[in-house]
Every structure is written in C-alpha cells, then in structure tokens.
C-alpha cells in the first residue's frame, strides 16, 4: 500500500499534524475553562475565555482542514471540508479577539474594578490624558 500511493508520507504527516493541532485545541479549551473559573477579576477571566475561543476553535479547525485532505474515503467532500474549515478559522481569528477587545474596553471605561492589579497602563494613560 505504501508503494502504490506516492503521497502516503505526506498524508501521514498531515494526519499527525492535524491530530496534534486538535489535541492542542482541546488543551486550550481545558485551560480556558479552568481560568474562567479560577481567575480573580473580570479582565483576566475574559482573557481565559479568549484563550478558549481562539485556541479551542481555531487550532482544531486548522487541524481538521489539514486532516481532511489526507482522508481519501471522504471523496470530493474533503476539499469542501478543508476549505470551509480554513475560512472559518480565519474569520474566527479576526473576529473573536476584536470582540474581546471591544468588551474589555467598554468594561474598563464603565469602571469595572481591576482588583488584584499588577499594572494598568490604560488607566495611567487616561490619567495623563493620552487616551480619552
């Protein structure tokens, strides 16, 4: 079988890379869930949620995009699956951080307390009048 298919090494590599990306995504989801429960204030919890969104959705989607290329039993559908996963991953990469950014900015502007605070550069900038 290895002799018949000239792309068998590439396919094996694609399956392994895709599998690793999917596992990394699952780990990101786990980390994000733990962080969401354990982090002390709103902004770091939002950070954990973003880790879960980006890591837990984008990495597995890239993994699926790579893996489905190697799955011959899917027939023509594998090109569609791959392209759609890839596009969805890119759109999530664009929109999810933007959403988190907008929510965090609004929360900071509305005065949500940053309680255990290491540093708050945005607040310092506001005090100095650099940022409105």
């Amino acid at each position, binding site marked *: 079988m290895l002799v018949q298919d000239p792309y068998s090494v590439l396919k094996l590599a694609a399956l392994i890379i895709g599998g690793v990306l999917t596992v990394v995504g699952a780990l990101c989801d786990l980390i994000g869930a733990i962080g969401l429960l354990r982090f002390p204030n709103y902004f770091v919890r939002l950070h954990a949620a973003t880790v879960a969104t980006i890591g837990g959705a984008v990495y597995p989607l890239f993994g699926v995009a790579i893996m489905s290329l190697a799955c011959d039993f899917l027939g023509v559908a594998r090109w569609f699956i791959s392209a759609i996963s890839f596009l969805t991953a890119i*759109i999530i990469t*664009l*929109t999810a951080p*933007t959403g988190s*950014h*907008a929510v965090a*900015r609004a929360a900071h502007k509305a005065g949500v307390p940053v309680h255990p605070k290491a540093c708050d550069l945005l607040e310092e900038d506001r005090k100095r009048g650099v940022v409105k």
Partner: protein
Amino acid sequence: MRGTELIVVMCTVILIVAVTTAVIMGITAYTPGPEVRPLAKFYLENCLNLWNRAYWAASPEAVCSMLWDYRGIDTLYETTVFFLAIIGGVTVFRLIEVTPPLESLSEKIRRVLGLSVIVRTISKIVASIILIVAVAIAAHGHLTPGGGFQAGAAISVAPLMIIIALSRYFLEERKLTKERMLALRTVGLLTIWCTVIIPLIFALVGQVVYAMQNQAKPWTTFPGFPTGQLSTWIAGSLFIYNMAEFVAVGAGFTLLFLLLSLPEEVFREFMRRLTRK
C-alpha cells in the same frame, strides 16, 4: 406572598401536565408519520422533473419552487405585508424630516466616532465578507437552501454592525440614507409585482396564461421564463423573485436600523421646535 407563589407553581404544573397529555394523546394536531406524504411526494418528483415538464418549476430546490412557484401568490402577499409592516415602522418616525446634524460635526470628531480603531477596521473587513455571502445566498436561492429573505436578513447585519462600530455617519456619508433605502425597497417590491404581471401581458394578446406562471404548461400557450438550462441555471422567474426580495428585505431592515439609530438629541430638538411652534 407564599400563597401567591404556591398558586403560580400549581398552575404551571397543571398546565405542563395538561399540555403533555394532550400532545401524547395526539389531540393538538395531526402528527406526521415517518413516511413521505403525497403532497411532499408531488413536490419532490416534480420540481426538477426533466422528463415530464407539465408541473415542473425548473429548480432543484423544492422549498424555493414551492415558495415562489407552486404557492407563489402566498409569498407575494407575505412580501407585501412585510413591506407594509416596515411602512408602519417608518410612520412612527414620520416627524423626523430633519437629517442628523452631520455638517455641524467637525471632520476630526467624525473620524473618531464609534469604537476603537481595531474594532472599526475588523468591522469593515467583516462587513464586506457579509455583503459577499449575502449576495451569494440570494443568487443561489434556486439551487441551495437560502433565498431572498434569508439573504436580505443576512445583508442587513452589515449596516447594523457598521452603525454600532463606525457610527451612523459612516453610512450617511456613503449616501446610504433612509430616503434611498425606502426607494430601493420600493423598487424591489415593484420588480416582484412586475414579474407577476408579465404573463398577464401575454393574456392581452390572447394567450392562455396564469398569473405568476413560471414555466410553460401543456395546456397554456405562455412560453415560460428562460430556465438557463444550457448555460447557467437560473430557474425562470425564481431567480428574479429571489434577487428582488433580497433587495427589498435588505433595504427594509437597513431602513429600520437607520431610523432606530437616530440620535436622541436630534429627536428632542425636533420635538422642542414643534412645541414652540
């Protein structure tokens, strides 16, 4: 207080038990079985029957051919009702003959209206993607699930997002005003009605036609709308209906969002002037 809560809980429990019993006993309605019913079988067999074209709609999408061909008059009046509903919404805002004071704002303020620069940039990118997807949904309405109304609802998300992220003035500077939206949706509805009436023009010449007829029938002399069978499949009038509905619904929702996002200060100023008069 305790007694009231008890009564509410009791009533809820009785209601749930009664509804569940009614549904289980089949009292509420006819429960469809797993087999395909004769009516559904008719649509499935006939919507793209290349061998027997007596009842065909020239569209592989059974839902679209039902909506715009088999029971098209229903959808036609639904669209008109939707148009009138938006007109009702516009009527609430009929006092607003003034445009928001765009000129009174300086160029510098106008540029920083809306959210931060990250959100504004990404919103522009995503809005353009939404436009492409919506046009694709409308243009493939006779081939894949979707169609005019869904595409119109999808495209109206773009102006809503732009209003939130980039402020209303971004749309107004690009001439997407409420007057133009009103005109655009009227054009959409008129296109639908004209397409309905086109077969009737053949009746004036003495042909045998139905109103809103799409394809030729053996017992009518109307030649039917082009199917595009040899080049690009456009399914007769279904394509026209989908695109016109897309324009009408998209412009209608955009119009509502534009009206709802009028600054309150403009409203108050207008009412103040009205009462002073």
